[in-house]
């Protein structure tokens, strides 16, 4: 297959946690179970999700066999996390393995006028994360104090590191993305870290 649009998990009496609806095929003795309230990230996070509308529904896939995961032909990238936190768009998270905990984090206000809050999902701990990238392979961009980065929020996938995230509503970006609907803000990252973006805008 061209590219990496299918995640293949070989399970030997193990468990992988994946986004509900992402299994396309399997063989062997494998069971699927909803990971619980709020997708298994605990009552507090579930409550926050309910308040924020940030949706994340995970299932536990347990057993022995081969399981294939895919979502809308998106490209899949494996990231390793070592006692760290990854901030990721809930819609771009595919699967988790290891000692990882998911939560919801407030990331700022969408523009000065609407005052609508924005939230992202965080994954914390040590383990392996599969993330989705629409339109082609994910692009990893380094941010350092001497070179901040501006991204289209619709192309943002994830970030990690010591990054400060701000929503910019400057006129020049609005003209670049064609706004007019009042949502033409951009995401600016300052600090030190890595930002992941995808080639296709949501």
């Amino acid at each position, binding site marked *: 297959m061209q590219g990496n649009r299918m995640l293949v998990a070989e399970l030997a009496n193990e468990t992988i946690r994946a986004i509900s609806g992402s299994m396309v095929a399997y063989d062997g003795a494998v069971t699927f179970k909803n990971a619980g309230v709020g997708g298994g990230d605990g009552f507090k996070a579930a409550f926050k999700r309910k308040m924020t509308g940030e949706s994340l529904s995970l299932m536990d896939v347990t057993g022995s066999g081969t399981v294939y995961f895919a979502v809308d032909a998106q490209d899949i*990238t*494996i*990231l*390793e996390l070592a006692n760290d936190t990854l901030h990721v768009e809930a819609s771009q998270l595919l699967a988790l393995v290891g000692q990882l905990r998911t939560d919801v984090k407030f990331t700022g206000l969408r523009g000065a006028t609407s005052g609508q809050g924005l939230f992202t999902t965080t994954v914390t701990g040590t383990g392996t994360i599969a993330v989705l990238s*629409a*339109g*082609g*392979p*994910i*692009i*990893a*961009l*380094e941010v*350092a104090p001497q*070179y*901040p*980065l*501006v*991204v*289209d929020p619709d*192309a943002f996938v994830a970030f990690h590191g010591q990054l400060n995230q701000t929503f910019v509503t400057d006129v*020049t*970006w609005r*003209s*670049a*993305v*064609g706004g007019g609907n009042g949502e033409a803000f951009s995401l600016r990252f300052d600090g030190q870290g*890595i*930002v992941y*973006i*995808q*080639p*296709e*805008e949501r």
Partner: protein
Amino acid sequence: MSIQIHNPGTLPVNDNIPGNDYAFCVDLAGTPWFTSKGAMIAYYGNVAFEPLSRTNLTAMVASQFSSPLYADDWVVAQGQGKLILGDRGYNINSFDLDDGNLTIRASNLLAFEPGLSLKQSIVPGFLTLLGTGKFLASSNGPVMFAEPPLRVDPQALVGWADCPSPSHHFDAAWMHSFLSVVGGFFGMDSDEERQFDFTGAGTVLVQSSEKVLDDGHVYRHIESQTVQLSQASLLQLHRSIGARIQT
């Protein structure tokens, strides 16, 4: 993490992001670029995007961008920095024109240097680039380069260079079998009966067909053409459009 991490110093200069046919890095170094709205997915540096109507480069816009129907869809990017462009997950390629001309589907043109000038093609939904410079085009799947004579599905046509503008070709066998069954032509939409016929020397760019976007370009083009119609023709058009809306 095994994937390659880029920064402004390691990003390519006017080339695809390594290993990624679907994202392109433009090096903005003093000279401005025309970029289509919405193609920008990220940038480093001091970059300003200005609408064509509100840029300080009025003279450049007036001389190089001669397409009022599309002016709202484009901006001038200027400053110092690296721009990353993407378009619907389409493959992105850069092309160099050397005192040449190329006509391209408007929704597949992402950016061009001001050494090129842009004009509206006679063919609705297409734009013509003239002059010398670089431009970026997207295609649904890898772009195929073909030499005339050939016939192409209008939806699969990305553009053409050097050869004469195409004419319509209607497949005789297809028309025959359909006319006998359907008894009419208007509203038929299965493509094969209508093709663009290319002749002469040149290159035709083709992609996997796309669902033609209802992008407003073609609509504006057609609407602008209706000024040529008489009152009677306008009424007739009104009726036939009404009939189509009902079905």
